[in-house]
């Protein structure tokens, strides 16, 4: 298994605030890695740099040997990085099916003239999109909700749909930003199964931000810990969670 993501000395400043400083990460293909740390440690900021929402002030991000720094979010998405959000950001006024189809934007193409004139290619491509989207929804057991408005789904299913939508972009690297936030223990358990399922069904590497230590120690193979924007520790879950520095950062003296 080769290295998929290599982050070196990544940093960003907002005015005088150093939000992330000197972050190094090496993630192998097919791995499931956690990024943890107290609130305000810079975890989501790191995700925003990986996906092109923010442009890092220094450091490099290499995905499969290609630099991602300076690329736009849509380009980075095409390179194979997809994400979910801490506070769910579905297209709430669109159907579940359309949410996934919107993310198929780049994988199945047809041009404007085809859309306007409803040429045969239009029907063929739309059918292909429908099938592809339904296939993904079926894996997440959301296919029976295809025509439901995304905002009408229960919370846990909205989280699932967000992951399904991200996977529809056919990513090499999937970034999950606090997937268990706001979930009850049952939903969290279900989420862990979903993540297992994703690894089985899609050839995808996962990096996730999470506060739920049961989830983190239960499924992650490797952890990076951020505190005040700098890397505090990294290692296997048992190493990291027993590290006195990590305990101190979370619980204080």
């Amino acid at each position, binding site marked *: 298994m080769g290295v998929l993501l290599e982050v070196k000395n990544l940093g960003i400043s907002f005015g005088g605030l150093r939000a992330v400083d000197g972050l190094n990460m090496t993630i192998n293909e097919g791995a499931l890695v956690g990024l943890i740390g107290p609130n305000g440690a810079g975890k989501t900021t790191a995700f925003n740099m990986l996906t092109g929402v923010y442009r890092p002030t220094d450091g490099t991000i290499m995905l499969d040997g290609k630099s991602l720094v300076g690329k736009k*979010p849509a380009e980075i*998405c095409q390179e194979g990085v997809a994400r979910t959000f801490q506070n769910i950001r579905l*297209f709430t006024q669109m159907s579940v099916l*359309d949410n996934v189809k*919107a*993310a198929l*934007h780049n994988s199945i193409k047809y041009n404007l003239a085809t*859309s306007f004139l409803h040429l045969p290619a*239009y029907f063929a491509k739309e059918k292909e999109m429908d099938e592809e989207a339904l296939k993904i929804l079926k894996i997440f057991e959301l296919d029976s909700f295809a025509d439901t408005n995304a905002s009408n789904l229960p919370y846990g299913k909205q989280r699932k749909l967000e992951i399904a939508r991200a996977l529809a972009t056919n990513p090499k690297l999937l970034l999950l930003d606090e997937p268990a936030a706001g979930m009850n223990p049952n939903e969290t358990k279900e989420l862990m199964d979903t993540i297992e399922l994703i690894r089985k069904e899609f050839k995808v590497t996962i990096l996730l931000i999470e506060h739920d230590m049961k989830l983190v120690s239960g499924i992650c193979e490797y952890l990076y810990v951020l505190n005040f924007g700098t890397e505090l520790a990294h290692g296997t879950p048992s190493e990291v969670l027993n590290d006195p520095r990590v305990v101190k950062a979370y619980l204080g003296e």
Partner: protein
Amino acid sequence: MSLINAILEQLLNGLRTGSIYALIALGYTMVYGIAKMINFAHGDIIMVGAYTLYVCVSLLHLHPILAVVITILVCALLGVVIEKIAYKPLRQAPPLAVLITAIGVSYLLQNLALLIFKATPIPFASIIKVPSIKIGGVHVSGLTIVTLIVTTISMILLTLFINKTKAGRAMRAVSEDKGAAELMGVNVNQTISITFAVGSALAAVAGVLFIAQYETLLPTLGALPGIKAFVAAVLGGIGSIPGAMLGGLILGIIESLAKAYISTQLSDAIVFSVLVIVLLVKPSGLLGKMKIEKV
């Protein structure tokens, strides 16, 4: 019987004007939905459309259908170019800067027309030559028939485009959450360009129908229908596509009935009063959705 017939005729007139307003209002509402800005130059696209049609038909003697196609293409292109040159650099700017720029573009277009075609009104006979018909004693002009058919077809095509195609889906995604759409690989710049092109193409169709009704070219001819269509878009709920269609039709009918039965001079005042009343009762417009900010 003749009173009912007269009212029916006024209603039809109202539907004709109203459907033109609706076509223009669609452009306002689509651009607002996607770029969160009021494109005040939108009304002047109608004027450019009317002049383009005049140049094609009266000066170049092209076939009317070819002339209409050229008009639509010119306006769609103009919409895209305006967005690229004037609005795109201001994407991150405060809304006030964008608003003032839009007004600036509006004046620029009007004055360019003034420079090229001078201030004297140019008479321009309607290119729509369809005989009027009588349905059960009600006189329906050919122009009304053509206007209603053309606007209905345009609206059906637009609805299909937005709901059933990839570009339409991208438009809906961008208008809901630009950031998330971008992160899902949607090309936001291209989607905004398509929105301006489609909105301006609809304005061109409206321009052709409008000039067939008024038969006089003036550099400022787009201003009044532009502002009325904006009112229609707000009345229906800005950002809502069915709202723009409904708002346009309601506005046209009220205007037409007010002109016929209350006072020609007061008709505009009545139209705007309706807007004030609707917004007092329902601030988000008839079909607009109230946004509840979650904290």
